[in-house]
């Protein structure tokens, strides 16, 4: 296992794209979060806004880059034929997959932590100037606040789970474009379809089982009783999706020719 971990770490580390994608994840997350915070206006106060959640808007875009990174970690090997070398070196294929998952999770946890805390910092600096701050009766964005800490840690875990979901999907589908299409479709389409159903209970059920809407419930720090699903349960739903994708990918990896 240690050898596999080292091999996967070397492969990911030495790809120029890995570094760029990690940088892009952090930069886009922070940029979109800061832009969303700067766009909010609440001059008269009393807006039903959630400061932490606004500060973490960038996750919606950042997760797409994380998905690309995870998909390319597998599909890139299929594209170049590298996968045959990997599996020859690690004949126990699930070990190879687990090593990939572990290395990828580590990288995303580090990058995600930087991106999330930088986003919250941007929100804490920008939002009070737009009528959403402690002087207007909103909770301050600080890491010592329980709900804010939950939103921050949860968002980092969310990104890691998105990476695992993408890794599983890419292992199952192999082809990079199809895999990224499937992952982004899974994330972005549920809420759109939910809106169109025009049926409140069906729409709520869709939001409860959708990987993105359920998973991002973790970002809420106010109005928890209006959420379709409670924060940690929502992250659990995403974890179930990620586990399902990994199991499916692992089964196909074992049974198929590379």
């Amino acid at each position, binding site marked *: 296992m240690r050898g596999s971990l080292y091999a996967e770490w070397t492969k990911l580390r030495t790809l120029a794209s890995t570094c760029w994608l990690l940088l892009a994840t952090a930069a886009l997350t922070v940029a979109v979060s800061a*832009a*969303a915070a700067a*766009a*909010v*206006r*609440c001059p008269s106060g*009393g*807006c*039903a*806004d959630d400061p932490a*959640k*606004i500060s973490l*808007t960038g996750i*919606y*875009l950042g997760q*797409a*880059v994380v*998905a*690309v990174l995870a*998909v*390319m970690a597998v*599909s890139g090997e299929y*594209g170049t034929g590298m996968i045959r070398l990997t599996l020859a070196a690690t004949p126990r294929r699930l070990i190879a997959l687990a090593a990939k998952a572990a290395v990828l999770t580590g990288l995303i946890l580090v990058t995600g932590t930087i991106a999330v805390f930088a986003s919250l910092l941007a929100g804490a600096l920008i939002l009070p100037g737009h009528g959403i701050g402690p002087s207007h009766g909103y909770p301050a964005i600080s890491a010592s606040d329980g709900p804010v800490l939950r939103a921050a840690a949860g968002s980092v875990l969310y990104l890691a789970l998105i990476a695992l979901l993408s890794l599983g999907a890419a292992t199952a589908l192999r*082809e*990079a*474009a*199809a*895999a*990224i*299409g499937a992952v*982004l*479709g899974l994330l*972005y*389409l549920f*809420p*759109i*379809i*939910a*809106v*169109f*159903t*025009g*049926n409140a209970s*069906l729409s709520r059920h869709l939001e409860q089982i959708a990987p993105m*809407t359920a998973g991002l419930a973790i970002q809420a720090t106010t109005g928890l009783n*209006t959420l379709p699903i409670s924060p940690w349960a929502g992250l659990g739903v995403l974890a179930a999706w990620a586990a399902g994708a990994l199991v499916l990918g692992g089964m196909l990896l074992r049974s198929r020719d590379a």
Partner: protein
Amino acid sequence: MNTITPSRSAAPPARAGFAHLLHAEWTKFRTVRGWVIAVIVAVLVTVLLGLFQGSHSHVAPCTTGPNGPACHYVIPAGPGGESVTDTFYFVHRPLAGDGTITVRVTSLTEVAESSQTLNGRPVSTKPAVVPWSKAGLIITAGSGQGSAYAAVLVTGSHGTRMQWNYTGDTAGLAGRVSAASPRWLRLTRAGDVITGYDSAGGTSWTKIGAVTLPGLAPTVQAGLFATSPGYAQQTSQQITSASGTAAPTDATATFGRVGMHGGWPGSSWTGTSVHGGPDSPYVTGHEAGYRQAGSAFTVTGSGDIAPDVTDGVPIDVLLAGLFIALITVLVVGAQFMTAEYRPGLIRVTLAASPRRGRALAAKAIVLGAVTFAAGLAGAAAAVLIGIPLLRASGNPVYPATALTEVRVIAGTAALAAVFAVLALALGAILRHGAGAVTVVITAVILPYLLTAAIPVLPAGAADWVLRVTPAAGFAIRQVIPAYPQVAASYTPSSDYFPLAPWAGFAVSCAWAALALALAAHFLRRRDA
């Protein structure tokens, strides 16, 4: 200075060459089984989701009556076929033939139901300013909902107006009416033509407008009215479904010096509450009605005489499946280009067609045509089968003209084709399938998601996002128009786009054209 000269074939380009090129690209497309299956699946998903939406939407408020649950809910239709709100208190008498009615309005006040409740009942009412409360003179073909009409009226905060047939609206004198600054209103009927005037002092009159109500019967109903639409308060820039609170309101207007000339056969006034269904829209504890003392009247009413933008299912909900189909199409579009690079097929393609821009054009045409045809088939089936299903399951369908239906169906198919070409061009620029798919999905679907589906962006930012990103093209789906004289939440999350349908579509086309131009540039400059 170094210039790179692209390799060019010495053979003269033949006209027939492009047809061959198209044929070659079509052959490449149809012989990849995965792409053909993906397109067929996209069509099927669009149709099936349309059928599901048609049979599972329940937006009509169902009431439980003596005969069990009933979901008939009829939205009145105006003379132009548009769905309208037509609820007001009407103090009227018949007008036979031509005639004139003049009145002085000295006050217009509104009350809103307080949002505080005690044992489920509101505890009090409170004074409110309802911008589009209305009171004044109206000449209508009848007191049934949806009748043709013309009116001059004072409003809560939009001055004096002349309005007709629900959608027509012309401004007259500005300012709010009060005892110190009364408004004089006059309506004159001559055949089918009704002319509205207003005046601040009752001596010098200004014509606001003259409208023709075709086929107006000789005897019409004319008189005084008052109405006031529900009060909607937006509590946040961050629009969420829970942030708006609405409460019924009603308006009371004081009229005096009613004067009439012409054919007024009756001798007394009749008060009618024009509304549909048994529910009174009035504020609890207040009654609609009128009081008369000589030629002075006080009229209280609630509702609106305006186009209806809140009820009825717009037909674009039947096209929800298109978003799923779109992801499939975007993946195929990107792969149609990037697949050339992996086995080195691109070198054969470019050797066969040394003028590289033409090879790209042929690809774009084949992909666009296939996507448009598939989108048209899917969207047309979803909408045309879905509408009867919606009606059968008791939902009022927002009436759309045939032209609007064609625009929504064909425009949606064309939009899918434009986005597919955008994916193709990004594939040529990035030469990386996953990269191209990610960029195109985050450029097309993500802006729509963050502004319309889960509105996490504030309304002002959302409008800008839908003006400048490729997602602007989704405006082509908008069915219900926005009316300046109706206060409603005209935000992307309520299906209103900041750009007009074809303007939004043009923005998407511009992005695709820009990407294609860049792709052609890179294709020529780079080694394959």
